[in-house]
């Protein structure tokens, strides 16, 4: 399976990573190479095999549905590149 430049552009966009047009051919080649390596998986007979969801058999832990922490907006915002008046600030989203 090989990836076209258009598919590479689409994957980059889905991943929200800006890729210049000039870089697309090399990206497509690289991704194709890796996918080709993965093609080997096609040789394995997986008929009737369950896909693994968790490597250690255990029941997911549950806890009481209650607030356990909070009340620290300054700490939450302390690492934000742009925070104003107790909010994360982002470029305009809605016109």
């Amino acid at each position, binding site marked *: 399976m090989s*990836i076209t430049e258009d598919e*590479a552009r689409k*994957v*980059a*966009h*889905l*991943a*929200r*990573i*800006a*890729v210049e047009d000039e870089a697309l051919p090399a*990206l497509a080649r*690289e*991704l194709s*190479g*890796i*996918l080709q*390596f*993965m*093609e*080997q*998986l*096609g*040789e*394995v007979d*997986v008929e009737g*095999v*369950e*896909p*693994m*969801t*968790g*490597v*250690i058999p*255990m029941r*997911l*832990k549950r*806890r009481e549905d209650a607030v356990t922490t909070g009340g*620290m907006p300054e*700490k*939450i915002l*302390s*690492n*934000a*590149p*742009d925070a104003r008046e107790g909010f*994360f600030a*982002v*470029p*305009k*989203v809605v016109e």
Partner: protein
Amino acid sequence: MSDLNKLTITEARDALAKGDVTSVELTEACLGAIEGAGALNAFVHGTPDKARAMAAAADQRIKDGQASAMTGIPVGIKDVFCVQGVPSQAASKILDGFVPEYESTVTQNLWNAGAVMLGKLNQDEFAMGSTNEASCYGPAVNPWQGADGQKLTPGGSSGGSAAAVAADLCLGATGTDTGGSIRQPAAFTGTVGLRPTYGRVSRWGVIAYASSLDQAGPMTKTVRDAAIMLGAMASVDPQDSTSADLPVPDYESLLTGDIRGKKIGIPREYRIDGMPDDIAALWDKGADMLRDAGAEIVDISLPHTKYALPAYYVIAPAEASSNLARYDGVRYGRRAKLGQGDGIVEMYEKTRAEGFGPEVQRRIMIGTYVLSAGFYDAYYNRARKVRTLIKRDFENAYADGIDAILAPTTPSPAFALGAMDQADPVQMYLQDVFTVTLNLAGLPGISVPVGQDKSGLPLGLQLIGRPFEEGDLLNQALVLEKAAGFVAKPERWW
């Protein structure tokens, strides 16, 4: 006492208990060694003030008779662990300036035990890599040199941890292992690296790469040290929903040195084409050592071994693409400078393009691709089914009475920095060929230095154990360590 930084954790603990040395003295020795080791680029954020304060507190605790085995022991922490108030950026530009407001469970456990924090250690960005070259800080350098003073990789992703332990900059270090990132660097630097069973050590506060595979563990100078340090790192943690509800045993007390009657499997599928003679010979030698100690050596088959790497390179990037979606330039870390009229999508795309390095971008995109509509079944689901089969291979071996499996840790000794620059990504991924299987199966594994190649570089063997039987595994590793008698140290050039 001189050269206190060269002590093992065990020696330091005993000296502290006898009052022959103080934690302040140990800590100063390590800080001095770090100061003189800039050329190794192992420590990337030093915390000397914190270290001195913690050492003084540890000395008081020892005086008060409240010490545990790790009290007063100076350690290094891989950058991937969040430490409150200390830059923690997993060697990524996208986390430039990130200073956590909270503490990872592993580091909290170490501080509760009285360990002393020397600083943060270099690694590959988001723990993705096998050479430590994918780091925003530049590569860590192996204290072992190649011919003519050639600079070698310490391996990756926990390259800074391995280099620091091998060069005696700290007594032990934390690492994380998603596909071999503790064991491969340990093998490249003549140190011991233990990856515990999935769920033994909490992932809370460890910056995530691939959550179903990530596991933190100790990197130390000896097997006994690994037992002591694992005991302090491991816990049952309500903050991590995959933390196993099993009490943490006293691993050191399980080190009897007696492995008589144990069955050690030699998996025939690991004898790959092109394996260097040195490594094949070392493997045979390791089997002889265990046999001489009374273990039974058994030829076994793990038939799906060949498919572990391709399965890993579907599953790990898939999980990474989800985990790393959080780096959006909004809540923490870096945000790209935006142009006139740029909206939120441009902000995401520019921030991620300049914040992530090439290998991380590659894995995010591969992960995005294998999870996208139309390919999910063909790649991701198929890889998860193959993973089930790989785990079943191990279960079958253990059901047949095998206690542990012996294999080489890496397909080569440490190689030159830059050697992989022109290689395609798959060449680099082949570094993980012996290590990645047990991550897929969730099993514990330990790399022990057993010999040297023709040019004197360290070589490691790994033992793979039964789930949650780290005590047995460490005991087998101890026997291997003792029989190998590996004492070589890198000659100081830095």
